[in-house]
């Protein structure tokens, strides 16, 4: 067990840190969270900068156009980004962390050549078309149908929770291609061009008022067979590959951001005097210890992934604990805000010091409710932990 970084890892860190110190302060102002075209422009411009500097797809294999760095370097990368308050993946989330890695592993050479470079350069944005209104936790029961006509699949159905649909060029799409046998044996993984005719996008408003997600109504959309990743009816296996990336290091950036948030809450509590209450200190200490533990667990998961090549089951343990902790940290923030938490507009602070940022904090608090639902509810995660790790019987 060694938590020190090697010389080459430290060299990578130093080089990255100095680059970030140069570019981050002169970035244009962040766009409004509600202005999706502006967000796309900002996030893809940032991705282009990373690409030009050699930091795109840090842990993607070299044959996928990535840097081929180790998971540990990916960790250093995330640490430095957070430290520099640099932008994170934004609208490139699905391309960089979901679809891209899946195509690296499961795509054909032609698919890799066509789809990977535009992701890394920030030229193309992806969205996700997995869940359906009646296929949430029970994803394998999805019913969006694809029927083969010549060189195309003709796709009809409804998708939901499609992130960034309005600004996306491509969609990773799960479709039903067979009704025979068990339901997860008739699913196929497709790449759908978002400019194909027959796609209707209806934005879905979340409880924080954002329209990060949409519903997709697909009516006879033609998707070339050449855009199929993996074999027909083998899409469930491909999906498990995709989800293993989501459940791997995908939350590390948010963990580091949450640690930073807790530190800010501590500073604010000291200033306001709330720190004098044992309960506030104990909540900070309790959550601080849990964040430290999760950071240790993340590094353990990454060390094990480095050894085995794939993210392990530790990811479900991490996700389960972190999603609830994120909610509790956000709750402490709300409690410290007091009455100021009743508004999403920025308010002056009571003591004249730097305000805690009540608008951003309220939004973070509301968005945190999503964490125990998205990417597998906590109930589903507990099933996974109990059945796959502990070997308890299915019901």
């Amino acid at each position: 067990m060694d938590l020190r970084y090697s010389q080459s890892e430290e060299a990578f860190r130093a080089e990255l840190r100095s680059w970030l110190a140069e570019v981050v302060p002169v970035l244009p102002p962040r766009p409004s969270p509600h202005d999706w075209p502006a967000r796309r422009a900002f996030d893809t411009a940032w991705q282009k900068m990373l690409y030009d500097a050699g930091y795109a797809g840090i842990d993607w294999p070299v044959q996928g156009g990535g840097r081929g760095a180790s998971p540990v370097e990916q960790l250093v990368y995330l640490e430095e980004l957070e430290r520099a308050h640099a932008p994170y993946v934004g609208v490139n989330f699905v391309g960089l962390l979901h679809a891209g890695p899946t195509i690296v592993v499961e795509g054909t050479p032609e698919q890799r050549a066509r789809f990977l470079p535009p992701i890394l350069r920030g030229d193309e944005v992806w969205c996700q078309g997995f869940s359906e209104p009646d296929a949430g936790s029970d994803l394998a029961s999805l019913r969006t149908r694809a029927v083969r006509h010549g060189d195309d699949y003709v796709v009809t159905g409804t998708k939901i929770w499609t992130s960034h649909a309005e600004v996306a060029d491509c969609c990773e799409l799960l479709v039903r291609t067979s009704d025979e046998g068990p339901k997860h044996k008739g699913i196929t993984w497709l790449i759908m061009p978002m400019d194909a005719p027959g796609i209707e996008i209806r934005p879905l408003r979340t409880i924080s008022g954002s329209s990060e997600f949409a519903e997709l109504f697909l009516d006879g959309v033609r998707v070339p067979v050449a855009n199929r990743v993996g074999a027909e009816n083998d899409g469930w296996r491909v999906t498990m590959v995709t989800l293993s990336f989501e459940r791997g290091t995908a939350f590390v950036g948010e963990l580091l951001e949450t640690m930073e948030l807790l530190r800010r809450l501590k500073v604010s509590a000291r200033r306001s005097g709330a720190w004098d209450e044992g309960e506030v200190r104990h909540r900070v200490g309790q959550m601080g210890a849990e964040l430290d533990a999760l950071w240790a667990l993340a590094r353990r998961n990454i060390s094990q992934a480095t050894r085995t090549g794939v993210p392990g089951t530790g990811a479900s343990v991490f996700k389960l604990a972190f999603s609830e902790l994120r909610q509790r940290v956000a709750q402490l923030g709300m409690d410290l805000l007091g009455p100021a938490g009743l508004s999403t507009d920025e308010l002056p602070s009571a003591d004249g010091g730097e305000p805690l940022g009540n608008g951003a904090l309220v939004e973070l608090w509301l968005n945190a409710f999503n964490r125990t639902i998205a990417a597998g509810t906590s109930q589903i995660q507990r099933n996974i932990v109990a059945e796959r790790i502990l070997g308890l019987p299915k019901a």
Partner: protein
Amino acid sequence: MDFDLSDDDRSLADGMRRLCTGRFPLEQLRRSEGRRSLDRAGWSVLAEAGVFSLRLAPSAGGAGLGTAQASVVFEELGRALVPGPVAATHVAAAMVEGAATGERTVGLLPRPGWGGPGGGPSLPAMVGDLGSLDCLLVVDGDAVELVETGELDGEPVEGLDPLTPMWFVAEIPRGAAVGAAAAAEAIWRDHLVLSGALLVGMAASTSDMAVEYAKVRQQFDRPIGAFQAVKHMCADMLVRTELCRAAVHAAAVAVDQPEVGDSVRAAAGAAMLAAQAADANARACIQVYGGMGFTWEVPAHLYLTRARVISQFLGSSGALADVVAGRF
């Protein structure tokens, strides 16, 4: 001793529920999301139904009923998410001319910095519905003061609850003294009980929503309510609701029948449990609804944010627990 609801209590509740579903259906309330002014016509309907005058003597234009009956009525207002300062205007009815009849809407604030029974938030003060308030009662341990809203310098801000417009008020001026320490305690206590009743109704409503959804939503070829993870979440929601409802009713009866116990302790404890239940049940409701619970469309979040708005003005769980602990 008969702590069950009487037939009269039940028909009072039924009547108020019918009024709410008829006049304040949620779909209609939601059309005023983001509103900055109160629906005055609706306010008059509430006044005519006796929501504010219920406890006044018949000679004063009231129904001469007790706090217990008021709590039954307010549970229905909470269930329906009826907006506006209903509890404050009700407790002000005997003190502020025109409150009982709905002609004047009255807000209630703890004097910022006051840490007495129930505690209170410190500055900056947020005041809900300020634009539609005629006056405010400001309460601390020593007195009740009446502040005309014209004297307040409020800045409109975006509210957490889309149905409760908010104003930021940097300073609460002193007002005319309209009551001494005993009145202050009684007003604060009764406001805790009736706010608690609103929160009970909200906890019950999200519990009902979650249970109904768990019966119809199918995943893995069965209703999700057949899975123990969901089933037990629903059971816990009911337990929370039943407990805080019993607590609020007992506190209301203690206000009406001082000989049965310490009404301040009962009010503080009941308000605390009701605030916790309304919050926890709204969260559980979002979780049972899954992704849909995270949408604006499903009203679970309206219960979550309304609960926070109401609770914020009652004092934190810790402050209320302190009151109970000191008197236990």
